[in-house]
């Protein structure tokens, strides 16, 4: 079992005809994902990679019954793409696009309030439920079906952690990249809630990083609501503080943004901290052995 995407996911790809859209749509199809439609304005009526292409998300849903969207729309148009999908009531939108202006995302979040759509990303690797559905750019072959949920702000670091898990024979229920932007559509807490409810997830691996306070929020959730064990790695212990950040922002984020503060909060909440990024797999193995 899994969260967010599974065998019943009927995926639509927004930006299917672009170079990244094409490359990764092909990989998703090869993985066994049911890609039922593509959307590229102006290319409606054509076929791309054997998938019917539509001008609008609304039309694509009407014709194919798509129930999730994967987005490769360029940054200048991505917020509009998210809004388009949200306006149709699309239950899940996974936005891969990197570099969306912050104020565009402010509008998106305002529009998402009260809507049925769950947004994952932007600037993320996507979501995969191994053996069922790959809605993202992650390498399919490194995953193994199983019962550990993975949540991460990073892309490639997650691939590495997943490889460690798989090589130890530890499978994953679902791996969710929530993305590295300041205003992610879904937070650690949002996804932890889903894993806590998912009967087939036994433990969760959480990969955080410096900046913001999402890890501290996760710590509160873990300490009050989470019954399943959580293994954590926080990237950026060696990162220089305040680099490239404006005065007020850097100051206000202040100490809360540091790796050490996040590790402290999560450790106090009862999570198990991996001492270095190459040991997340082994740490998870030890935790699973105690269950």
């Amino acid at each position, binding site marked *: 079992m899994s969260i967010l995407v599974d065998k019943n996911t009927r995926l639509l790809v927004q930006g299917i005809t672009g170079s*990244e859209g094409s490359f990764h749509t092909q990989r998703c199809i090869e993985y066994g994902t049911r890609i039922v439609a593509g959307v590229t304005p102006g290319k409606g009526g054509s076929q791309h990679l054997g998938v019917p292409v539509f001008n609008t998300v609304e039309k694509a849903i009407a014709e194919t019954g798509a129930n999730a969207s994967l987005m490769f729309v360029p*940054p*200048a148009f991505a917020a509009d793409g998210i809004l388009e999908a949200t306006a149709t009531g699309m239950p899940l939108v996974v936005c*891969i696009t990197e*570099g969306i*202006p*912050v*104020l565009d*995302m*402010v509008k998106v*979040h*305002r529009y998402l309030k009260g809507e049925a759509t769950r947004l994952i990303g932007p*600037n993320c*690797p996507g979501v995969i439920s191994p053996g069922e559905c790959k809605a993202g750019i*992650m*390498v399919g072959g*490194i995953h193994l079906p199983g019962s550990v949920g993975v949540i991460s702000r*990073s*892309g*490639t*670091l*997650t*691939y*590495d952690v997943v*490889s460690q898990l798989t090589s130890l024979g530890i499978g994953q229920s679902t791996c969710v990249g929530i993305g*590295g*932007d*300041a*205003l992610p559509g879904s937070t650690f807490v949002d996804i932890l809630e889903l894993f806590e409810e998912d009967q087939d997830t036994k433990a969760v691996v959480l990969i955080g*990083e*410096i*900046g*913001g*306070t*999402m890890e*501290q929020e996760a710590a509160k959730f873990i300490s009050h609501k989470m019954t399943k064990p959580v293994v954590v*790695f926080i*990237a*950026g*212990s*060696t*990162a220089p503080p*305040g*680099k*490239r*950040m*404006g*005065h*007020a*922002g*850097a*100051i*206000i*984020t*202040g100490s809360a*943004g540091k790796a050490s503060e996040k590790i402290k909060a999560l450790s106090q909440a009862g999570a198990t901290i991996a*001492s*270095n*990024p*190459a040991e997340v797999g082994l740490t998870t193995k030890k935790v699973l052995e105690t269950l």
Partner: protein
Amino acid sequence: MKTVFAFLANVGSNPTPSASGKQGGNLKIHEYQAKALMAQYGIPVPRGRVASTPAEAREIAAEIGCQVVIKAQVYAGGRGKAGGIKTANNPEEAEKAASQLIGTKLVTHQTGPEGAPVSKVLVEEASDVTRELYLSILVDGESHLPMMISSEAGGMDIEEAAQSSPERIFRSDIDPAISFQPFQGRKLAYGLNLGGGQVVEVTRLMTNLYKLFIDKDCSLAEINPMVITTDEKLLALDAKLNFDDNALYRHKDIQELQDKEQEEPLEIQARDWGINNYVKMDGDIGCMVNGAGLAMAVNDLIQYCGGTAANFLDIGTLNNTERVVNSFKMFVADARIRAILVNIFGGMARVDVIAKGIVEAYQQMNVPFPVVIRLAGTNLEEGRRILAESGISFIQAKDFYDVANKAVKAAKGVME
């Protein structure tokens, strides 16, 4: 209203390489440029102009015709305490003050010991001030909304103020659908203990600052201090604007304002070569990694293995061999470097393209130190084949730990 600690804890911007790596950094501009922009939006600023020479400073002081302030234009804060702000009673004194600043390096608590170069000074009318207030706008990571922050504790470090007297800091979240509203201005104005006409005046100022923030895709708009003068006027005595790098494509005018002299030279070099996510660090291992999280984790792991990284470098996902070649150019030109670490886990980035780039780099330049390479992910087999068939000499690493460990040993000269 949310508590002050909530906003202190919940600003979601990333002050780190991860931020700059993944969500775009923040372009800074000088105070004189920020004031010019604010003036365009109807925000009152002191009379003045920027000078590049002491003679110009003298002319401007003569034009203003009263006591002036000479302010060193650097990106760092803490100028006052560092001697970067001087007063002058006449044009001669202005010239002298400017000559003491222009061409020097100003060391403040934000610059590090090397200081920031001063090539311009802002010469402006001195103001008699009765009150110093604080005002800023930035996007809150929790509410996902722009928030206006104001405080009576102007002129001082806002974080210190928030800790010592949180009850003196007020915030108002702004709904982008209806923009900044007069009632929010009144709430903040009464919080600042303003009265009478000043409430209307400061509300207008806040409305204008919000308009500027939105129009120009700012990541930070700060007036600290915003002062009340002895003749009861409201004035932006200092001004700071930062901009969202991700939105610069729609603001060519802002892009042109950047003063490259104020940035780390290696980081400017990297950006000129298309490597947007480079941060200089203190060590001797040149790192080329894809993905900001992985790049940070690599640097952490290097330290865990007993070494130090010379940089943070996220090569990004554009599958561009030129960027790989340019990364190697950066390393070869960097005298500190003793070894190169390459750790690529292909996803959006394809391993074969990275491998091609490495081979091109070896063809274009002499790489005078050991290179430790670990490849995994999308198009791995093709990438391995390209490296093997090229005949270049490098140290292969099998996994994440191995690449860091071997790079640390190589930098110390204990590997072949």
